[in-house]
């Protein structure tokens, strides 16, 4: 496992925002969960990398970058920020050895209407970051049939998981396991074994079942120059997830992005 990490931190206050790297949605934060901090090696390419902060994105994932009909009125201390840090393993932002590589801040004057989404970008030359990922050479999702293939894959994985069988998903996620080895040095066989064990453990819990796929709420989001599809629904939830329990908890989510590799839909991120 590597010892130094590139951590992307997305923060908001009194607003919502979405972060992207090279056009790939990374996270969405909002008032109820105002911070996201994660390693992002698998989204980076050697060379130029584009980091985007979209404040007050549209109402659904596929409309995230559409202009809002009404301007947003920031409140007192409304703000959003995006920053990339190089951090030693186990560190927190203020610890020694942490380097901030860039930072974007959005601090609108309170009470002044703002056209949204407010999009701020930073391009960073990172010759040693990431890899030339396999999915960059995949086929684009440019037809209805290609998107239907995504739905079919999700149905296959979801049905298998609902039976307690994670193997269809594991089979479709081989490219991702390999990518994570390249990105973080995570051993493929170990990761698969732990994935299997974790899923079976959770699937054995009382009341566990997978959420059904509803065509009316699916919002497959094509991104990264049509090379990827973000598998989410209209409420920004991963399509592959367990059904919500009575206490409001969704025990398991699989936020995945898929690509067309060799004629089949593969989980790559």
């Amino acid at each position, binding site marked *: *496992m590597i010892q130094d*990490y590139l*951590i992307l*931190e997305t*923060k908001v*206050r009194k607003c919502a925002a979405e972060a992207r790297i090279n056009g790939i949605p990374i996270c969405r934060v909002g*008032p*109820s*969960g*105002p*911070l*996201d*901090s*994660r*390693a992002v090696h*698998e989204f980076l390419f050697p060379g130029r990398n584009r980091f985007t902060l979209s404040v007050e994105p549209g109402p659904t994932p596929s409309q995230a970058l559409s202009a809002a009909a009404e301007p947003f009125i920031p409140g007192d201390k409304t703000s959003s920020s995006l920053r990339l840090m190089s*951090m*030693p*393993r*186990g*560190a*927190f932002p203020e*610890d020694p050895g*942490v380097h901030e590589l860039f930072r974007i801040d959005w601090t609108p004057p309170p009470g002044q209407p703002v056209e949204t989404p407010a999009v701020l970008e930073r391009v960073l030359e990172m010759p040693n970051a990431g890899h030339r990922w396999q999915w960059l050479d995949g086929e684009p999702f440019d037809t209805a049939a290609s998107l239907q293939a995504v739905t079919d894959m999700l149905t296959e994985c979801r049905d298998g998981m609902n039976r307690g069988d994670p193997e269809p998903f594991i089979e479709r*996620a081989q490219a*991702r*396991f390999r990518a*994570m080895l390249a*990105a*973080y040095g*995570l051993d493929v066989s170990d*990761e*698969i074994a*732990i*994935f299997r064990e*974790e*899923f079976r453990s*959770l699937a054995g819990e009382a009341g566990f079942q997978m959420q059904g796929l509803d065509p009316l709420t699916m919002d497959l989001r094509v991104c990264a120059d049509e090379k990827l599809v973000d598998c989410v629904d209209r409420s920004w939830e*991963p399509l592959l997830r367990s059904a919500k329990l009575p*206490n*409001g*908890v*969704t*025990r*398991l*989510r*699989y*936020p995945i992005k898929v690509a067309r590799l060799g004629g089949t839909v593969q989980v790559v991120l």
Partner: protein
Amino acid sequence: MNGHDPGSLPEVTPEQYSSSDNAAADCGSNNPIGDTVTPCGRGPVSSRPCDLDEITLSEIAGSRTAGYHVFNGRFVADSPTSKRGIRLFDVETSLPKEAKLQVVGDRPGAQSPTKILASVSAAATCGPTHVAVVVNPPPGQSEIDHVTPALVQDTFTFEASRSESANAAVALFERYIAWGIQPAAYLVSATSCGIRPGGTPKTRGTLTAEVFPADQYQLSLSVPAMGKVSYTRERTTVSSGETTDTSTAEAQLGSDTATVTDTTDTATGITVTDEDIKTVPQKLQFEFKHNGQSGDDITVNINNLLRILSSAQEAVKAIKDVLHEWVPQVGFKFEFDLSFLAGQIVMAWGYKEYTDWRVYYGLSAKFSLTFFEISLTFSFGIQIPAFVARVEGTVNDSAALETDFNFNSPDMLIAPSVKTTVDIPASVSGRAEAGVGWLSVSVELGVRTGFSGEVGLRTKSTTVELYAEIKWEGIDAFVQTKDSPNRGTQEGVWHLVDEKSIWDGVVAF
């Protein structure tokens, strides 16, 4: 008892007089004439008639209450709207027909005691008769007997003192703001033993003079924000397991800038003006006046107030002790700015004489308080099976109380009541240590976190009280974790911080 000359008057017994008897005119009385006479028992009964209608009882114009003068043998108010003359029986319909005279008075032994004047007109005594006036004071004082001489305008005065309060409450509000105190009652009775030819004299009448405490109070209180309190534990290496505690506490209760003007006590009522409320003060100032003089209890009350502020501060600080299962290797931070009762209170109160015969409890106040303002940030580590993470939280808002009231009439029910809801949610987030693990903390809408409660001003029996019920709701959060990018995201509800009462009760100082 003042006697009269029994030898100069023949004794008589009750007699019958006809309704045609016109002797009343001789007495200058316009009252109807009856047919019985009752001896008073104080001596020989006069052979001449008398009548009690012309007995006037009034408060003497003193240092506190001016505006009465004698006119035609009666005390008459200077202003037509402020008549205070009270008679045993109504002889002038323009004056109020009441059986009580209410005044304010000092404790026994005061230098300028309140005096009540009893006036018996010459007409009432009608010749060589007399009217006996008896004053029954509250327990502990001597009865006063007075017999008027005949055919002269006669007056006599007696001192009237307020009752003593047995209130032993320690708190300022409860001790001094109380409008339920029982007045000292002076029962005044007049008896005529005279005989009126041709009719029945009024033989006996009574009224009560009630004496309320004359004390007037003023309070101005300026409380600044309490300042910042921070508590941090520096991060150390995991292997050593050692932590370093550094705590800093401040209560900024002093600076050079001062604050507030005195209250205004008008002649007709108790009023606090807008000028009495200034901006949020920079310095703690407490001024309490009793009849215009600084009170003796200032030190006690300041200490009580400081104790309240300190208690609130300690209660918030103690939230750090109810964090759940935090791990020291991630470090610890707990920092807050607190204001409790910051702002100004200006009050004036006391019994006042109204423009008629009544006494009322005047209470006037302005409250401009940031009752509770908190800016709290905290962070602490938690252990996820595959990594450690840090929970970070902020709470930032306030509950203010802005109100004023004036009870300046005996016809107003004293019932100040105003409240403000405290609803200050926490914003909570989380992050994993740098690595492949990921964590997110969110607080669902509708889940109680942060501070809640109610603050306000309310009436309690015969006083007012500031109260606060403020509670730290604790934090229950939805925590999502992922041990590596290959895994699924697991979610559960984590109880991160316990609930805790911050302040529950009366803010009495």
